[in-house]
């Protein structure tokens, strides 16, 4: 068995492994069954065990939380800096906290011994009714902000010895409610973490309410009740399901290992056989394993929704049923891509091993033979099919996902998009490899076939090309697949075959990986664009259809739903009867944030309760009911719910509804709801700030500008693109013939994709989305390249290992051109990286400065506005007593917050304050800058959920020069615009850098080639000299050192040629002398016996005359025989010399060396003794060389003769003839088991006059060497007096 197969594990060990794994599966399954049986037998105990287990986990987690809080509080409270700051009553206590990080869910505050707040950070949660300002021990409790927030609270005394200096209040959020859910803002509930931990649904209860039945107390370490939590007893089915899932997760591990073993066995069997059947079996097994993994939910089941891998398997981001679930999530897509890659490698490996190298002649033969042309067409057709598949995959990856591929929030895409890009890159690479494998198989089949003579000269490639173009056109029309991409794929695959990437590990070098990354990314990008265009078209059509419908039935229903749900509130009737304003307000607040209406996005909602006399009892904090709303009461019946469109306002359609409230058949009053679209902030894309939009709303309208026109005049718009008031006349004309048009609009330097639709009522709605500019394309391509590099990195590492293993590393020889390219590449990277880093810093800093400048200027304008309102010598702050914050905000067109000291006292966006999106306390960093450091203006980075922005704070000073009030401006809408500009600038910067890198590489390639060319010519010249050809001149005419070197080389060549001529002349003379001597010597040998014989004949003739006729006859016959023999010998010597000396008249042709060797062997086998064995070791495939057939056969016959003669003392010897391909040459050998060649004779073996035989001129091997060298080959031998001699011949493989 081959050593490698042994090293990797013999089948016997695999069988044991398989048996063990099957046993483990059976055992685990048995354990699952037993556990399930136990659950069924004792369900109550099982439920109680599950609950007890969950309680222990929750208790441990809660205790760990408190432990962490205590440790942090202890460390802070005992910090000497804090203690000295409190003792000195200085502002350093503020700096102490400002220098520390307290990210969510933490908050902290420090109070002095009087209870005054000295410093704070994090969200504000009001103090409880009784704060333990005198306590000297730890105090735990629950801090609540209505039903918006609940936090675990720890009061830690700050002591200096026995002196109580104050308290540190540390808060850890347990619950936070948000009115809108999107990627930036989500509710936080600690019960969700505990539910995952406990594997049971956990509900937590905080705040002033009765504890639910069966709820457990959440108690702090000091016994204080923090809240309650309830564990829902799991149903038996759920317990069984959880248990089953647990055991099946373990079984999944064994199954995966078993599948790996099975795959290994099949792979080994394929390697031993390499037949089509086992190829198919291996491929089927590979995909079978993949589908088994899908069925078993592997690896999704192992991560069980835990971070950080859970988003990979969340269908929210990407999911499509394509391929039976191969892309059912991002993680599954990546795994499927890896499987596809290995399948592609399998095909390529098969093609390589089965067919070997592809001869260039095969490309020609493919298209000039009908049979082979069919093969070629089939391969190309399959290739196009693979490209279509890739197009479908890329399209689905875009269309069936919710990720923002085109977002430019940061340079690099977020992790999920990066994973999708990696999967697409792997798929693209796999497709190219499969196409290369198919082409290679087609060409290999042609190469393996006998290269037929002639063949039809009809260019079948034209027919195949026409058919292929038809198929490509169909793919373009039907699937939108750009034909250029198809051609690009085919070209890349063809080039891959031509460069034999499957057998050439050089492609795993850094340059090879970089080039492959660039190619794969470039192929992938257009396919992704097809899907992005489709998604954009759908969104634009949907936006055009849904915008400006007038009455939006879904909003009207949401209002109706709000009325229905509110009047079902069990506390409503009691609140009506008791006229409890507070309770009614709470009910109104609770239900007005109803999830359904909030999901419709952009509406301000007011809920009012009216008694039977139509007097307002309570409700949302808003202005008095408008007269228009009161008109509803006239229509309202006692039991109906009515919703209607309210009179339009500028910002859009408003809705109002009314429902009766009754109990026990008695009418108690009415609920009235009004929903108004929010006013569009100037310059904002959407009515609401983007970060406050529900996700669905943003999916519909983000990055779109929409305008509605009536009679060609703009009525209403959202977004920044529709700034002109009149519709383009071309659009109006076009819409007369059709109901919808698509076009490219230009506005200044910007281009937009635009869609215009004529509504049934004659209005025209236009939707615009910004076109992708060239630098945008480069930027997105850069992101794909980053993903490609992530995929390429493991290839490079594997390549390092493989190349080292086969001896390619460290490289024995590195081309000068490659060194130049590597140097340029390193230079480009070294240049680009600092430029990129500096560019990002500059852009970011400029962005920050722009924001701060904007804030400073606008706040200054606000102060000027206040100054204009001030009377007499009043300072601007005094005007605030007369000017409301709302009117000031409306006047300056900004949202404003007003602080007195650190507390927020007014806001132009009270709903943000009410919804706890704006904190009621100034950020500590702003307070420190304005009140401690004495700055008039302070920009502060703030966070709203996961959205970071900058707010500006401006102090209004009083007469003493002390900040009396502070105005703040959040930059939210402006920040979006500035961030987008920043992202665009960065996109352009990195797009330009990418273009620069590509330009550098192309230039480097050209320059390296130009620099290396003269050196290559010098090298060729030197090689020619080594071969003895001195006539070749190097044509380098540059005026640099290289030119001088070439000139010197040419001069050297001339001198060498002259020397060689003289040497040749001398050698010729010497050879003639030697030849003449040899001829004389050889001729003299037979001449002597001829002379003696004739002399003898003369004497015999004289004897005949004396009567001895009989003796004369005998003598005559003997002498004539001798003469004839010696004459034959002379003739043979003359022929030998003629053969050696003659100019070759050779018939060179393509021939199969194996055939020639077989013929020679057949000839000599007949002459050999019976005991001599001929062992022929020839490959199945032909070994084609260019040589003279007869000459070659003579050579092998000669070698075989020599072998036989060497074994004359070994009647049972073995003569071995072998032939094989060795890189670009054919190696053949004749081996004998004879006596070997004596060491003193080895150097003369190829000399013309040398022979160990008694007869012959000793020219056989000399002639053989001459013939082999004339064919461009070499001949040599290895010998041993104990094991025999091997004569070997190397000939170039015919091209």
């Amino acid at each position, binding site marked *: 068995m081959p050593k490698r197969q042994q090293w990797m594990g013999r089948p016997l060990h695999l069988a044991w492994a398989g048996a063990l794994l099957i046993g483990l599966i059976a055992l685990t399954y048995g354990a699952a069954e037993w556990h399930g049986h136990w659950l069924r037998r004792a369900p109550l105990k099982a439920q109680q065990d599950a609950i007890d287990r969950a309680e222990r986990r929750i208790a441990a987690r809660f205790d760990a939380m408190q432990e962490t809080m205590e440790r942090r509080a202890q460390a802070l409270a005992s910090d000497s800096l804090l203690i000295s700051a409190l003792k000195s009553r200085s502002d350093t206590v503020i700096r102490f906290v400002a220098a520390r990080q307290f990210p969510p869910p933490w908050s902290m505050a420090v109070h002095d011994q009087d209870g005054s707040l000295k410093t704070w950070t994090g969200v504000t949660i009001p103090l409880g009714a009784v704060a333990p300002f005198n306590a000297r021990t730890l105090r735990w409790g629950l801090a609540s902000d209505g039903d918006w927030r609940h936090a675990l609270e720890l009061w830690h005394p700050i002591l200096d010895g026995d002196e109580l200096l104050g308290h540190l209040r540390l808060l850890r959020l347990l619950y936070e409610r948000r009115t809108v859910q999107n990627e930036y803002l989500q509710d936080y509930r600690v019960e969700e973490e505990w539910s995952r931990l406990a594997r049971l649904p956990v509900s937590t209860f905080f705040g002033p309410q009765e504890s639910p039945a069966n709820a457990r107390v959440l108690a702090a370490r000091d016994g204080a009740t923090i809240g309650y939590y309830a564990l829902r007893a799991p149903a038996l089915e759920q317990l069984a399901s959880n248990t089953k899932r647990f055991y099946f997760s373990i079984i999944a591990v064994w199954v995966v290992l078993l599948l790996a073993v099975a795959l290994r066995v099949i792979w080994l069997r394929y390697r031993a056989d390499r037949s089509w059947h086992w190829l198919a079996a291996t491929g089927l097994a590979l995909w079978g394993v993949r589908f088994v993994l899908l069925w078993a939910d592997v690896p999704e089941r192992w991560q069980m929704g835990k971070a950080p891998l859970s988003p990979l398997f969340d269908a929210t981001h990407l*999911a499509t049923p394509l391929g039976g679930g191969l892309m059912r999530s991002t993680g599954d897509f990546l795994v499927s891509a890896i499987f596809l890659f290995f399948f592609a490698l399998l095909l390529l490996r098969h093609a390589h091993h089965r067919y070997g190298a592809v001869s260039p002649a095969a490309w020609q033969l493919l298209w000039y033979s009908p049979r082979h042309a069919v093969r070629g067409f089939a391969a190309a057709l399959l290739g196009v099919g693979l490209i279509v598949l890739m197009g479908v995959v890329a399209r689905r990856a875009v269309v069936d996902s919710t990720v923002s591929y085109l977002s430019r929030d940061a340079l690099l895409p977020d992790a999920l998009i990066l994973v999708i890009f990696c999967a697409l890159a792997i798929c693209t690479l796999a497709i190219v490899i499969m196409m290369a494998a198919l082409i290679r198989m087609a060409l290999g089949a042609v190469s393996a076939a006998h290269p037929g003579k002639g063949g039809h000269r009809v260019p079948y490639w034209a027919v195949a090309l026409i058919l292929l173009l038809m198929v490509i056109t169909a793919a373009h029309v039907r699937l939108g697949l750009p034909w250029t991409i198809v051609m690009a794929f085919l070209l890349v695959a063809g080039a891959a075959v031509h460069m034999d990437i499957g057998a050439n590990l050089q492609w795993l070098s850094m340059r090879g990986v970089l080039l492959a990354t660039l190619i794969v990314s470039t192929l992938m990008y257009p396919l992704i664009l097809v899907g992005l265009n489709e998604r954009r078209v759908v969104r634009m059509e949907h936006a055009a259809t849904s915008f400006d419908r007038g009455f939006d039935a879904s909003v009207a229903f949401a209002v109706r739903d709000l009325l229905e749900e509110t009047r079902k509130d069990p506390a409503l009737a009691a609140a009506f009867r008791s006229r409890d304003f507070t309770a009614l307000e709470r009910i109104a607040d609770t239900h007005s944030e109803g999830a359904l209406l909030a999901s419709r996005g952009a509406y301000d909602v007011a809920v009012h309760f009216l008694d039977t006399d139509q007097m307002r009892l309570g409700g949302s904090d808003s202005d008095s009911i408008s007269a228009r709303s009161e008109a509803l009461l006239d229509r309202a019946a006692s039991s109906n719910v009515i919703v209607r469109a309210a009179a339009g306002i500028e910002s859009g359609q408003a809705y109002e509804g009314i429902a009766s409230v009754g109990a026990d058949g008695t009418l108690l009053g009415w609920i009235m709801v009004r929903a108004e679209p929010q006013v569009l902030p100037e310059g904002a894309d959407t009515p609401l700030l983007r970060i406050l939009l529900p996700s669905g709303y943003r999916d*519909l309208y983000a990055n779109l500008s929409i305008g509605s026109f009536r009679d060609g005049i703009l009525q209403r718009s959202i977004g920044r693109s529709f700034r002109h008031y009149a519709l383009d006349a071309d659009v109006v004309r076009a819409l007369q013939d059709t109901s919808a048009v698509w076009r490219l609009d230009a506005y200044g330097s910007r281009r937009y994709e635009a869609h215009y639709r004529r509504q049934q009522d004659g209005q025209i709605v236009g939707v615009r989305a910004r076109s992708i500019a060239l630098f945008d394309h480069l930027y997105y391509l850069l992101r794909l390249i980053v993903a490609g590099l992530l995929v390429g990195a493991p290839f490079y590492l594997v390549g390092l290992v493989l190349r080292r293993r086969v001896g390619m590393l460290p490289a024995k020889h590195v081309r000068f051109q490659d060194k130049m390219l590597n140097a340029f590449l390193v230079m480009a990277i070294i240049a680009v990286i600092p430029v990129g880093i500096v560019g990002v810093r500059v852009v970011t800093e400029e962005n920050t400065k722009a924001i701060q400048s904007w804030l400073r200027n606008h706040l200054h304008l606000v102060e000027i506005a206040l100054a204009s309102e001030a009377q007499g010598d009043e300072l601007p702050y005094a005007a605030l007593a007369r000017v409301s914050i709302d009117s000031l905000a409306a006047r300056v067109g900004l949202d404003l917050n007003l602080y007195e000291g650190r507390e927020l006292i007014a806001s132009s966006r009270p709903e943000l304050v009410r919804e706890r999106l704006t904190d009621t306390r100034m950020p500590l960093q702003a307070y420190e800058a304005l009140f401690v450091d004495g700055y008039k203006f302070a920009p502060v980075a703030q966070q709203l959920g996961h959205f970071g922005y900058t707010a500006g704070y401006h102090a209004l000073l009083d007469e003493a020069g002390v900040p009396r009030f502070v105005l703040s401006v959040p930059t939210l809408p402006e920040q979006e615009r500035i961030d987008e500009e920043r992202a665009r600038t960065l996109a352009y910067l990195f797009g330009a850098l990418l273009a620069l890198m590509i330009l550098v590489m192309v230039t480097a390639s050209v320059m390296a080639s130009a620099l290396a060319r003269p050196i290559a010519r010098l090298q060729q010249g030197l090689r020619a000299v080594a071969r003895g050809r001195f006539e070749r001149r190097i044509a380098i005419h540059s005026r640099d050192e290289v030119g001088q070197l070439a000139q010197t080389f040419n001069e050297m060549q001339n001198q060498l040629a002259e020397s060689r001529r003289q040497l040749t002349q001398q050698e010729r003379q010497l050879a003639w002398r030697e030849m003449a001597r040899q001829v004389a010597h050889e001729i003299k040998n037979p001449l002597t016996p001829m002379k003696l014989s004739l002399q003898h004949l003369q004497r015999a003739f004289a004897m005949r005359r004396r009567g001895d006729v009989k003796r004369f006859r005998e003598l005559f016959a003997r002498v004539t025989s001798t003469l004839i023999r010696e004459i034959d010998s002379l003739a043979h010597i003359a022929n030998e010399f003629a053969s050696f000396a003659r100019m070759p008249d050779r018939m060179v042709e393509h021939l199969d060396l194996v055939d020639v060797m077989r013929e020679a062997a057949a000839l000599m086998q007949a002459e050999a003794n019976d005991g001599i064995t001929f062992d022929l070791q020839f490959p199945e495939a032909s070994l084609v060389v260019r040589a003279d057939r007869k000459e070659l056969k003579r050579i092998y016959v000669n070698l075989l003769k020599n072998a036989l003669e060497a074994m004359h003392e070994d009647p049972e010897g073995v003569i071995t003839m072998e032939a094989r391909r060795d890189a670009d040459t054919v190696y053949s050998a004749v081996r004998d088991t004879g006596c070997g060649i004596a060491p003193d004779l080895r150097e003369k073996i190829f000399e013309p006059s040398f022979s160990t035989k008694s007869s012959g001129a000793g020219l056989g091997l000399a002639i053989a060497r001459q013939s082999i060298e004339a064919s461009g080959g070499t001949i040599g031998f290895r010998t041993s007096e104990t094991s025999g001699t091997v004569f070997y011949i190397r000939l170039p493989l015919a091209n």
Partner: protein
Amino acid sequence: MRSILVKASFALGLSAALVPWGHAQIPALVAAVDSAFVQEDVHKVLAQAAEYIEMGLLGQSRLYSQRQAQRRLGQFFRDYPPQSFVWSTMHADDGHWFATGRYKAYNMLRVYAHWEQQASGWKLVNLQVFK
């Protein structure tokens, strides 16, 4: 038993709704979704879904393609297996049909569905599940 309860609850729900003229097929669609929820039949729930459907399942509402919506809904059923489902309110408007219901998994959840009359027939365009 469950099917009887489902049908009974559906009938009760229907009696509380307004059923305008010309919408006879809508109750059938609504009933189909009703039973599909209980059977965790994703394909049946989304059989009449538009090419792109706005869907929010105890989280962010997103605009999903129909194929992606199927997979997302399947995940939801796996994480929150239904014990019962019943429509509570239904309302029709010009070219629109709305329904809200109660979905019981581990706890009670609200379901909102919105069908819209399009050129190719009634299409489910919005499906939301709230706490």
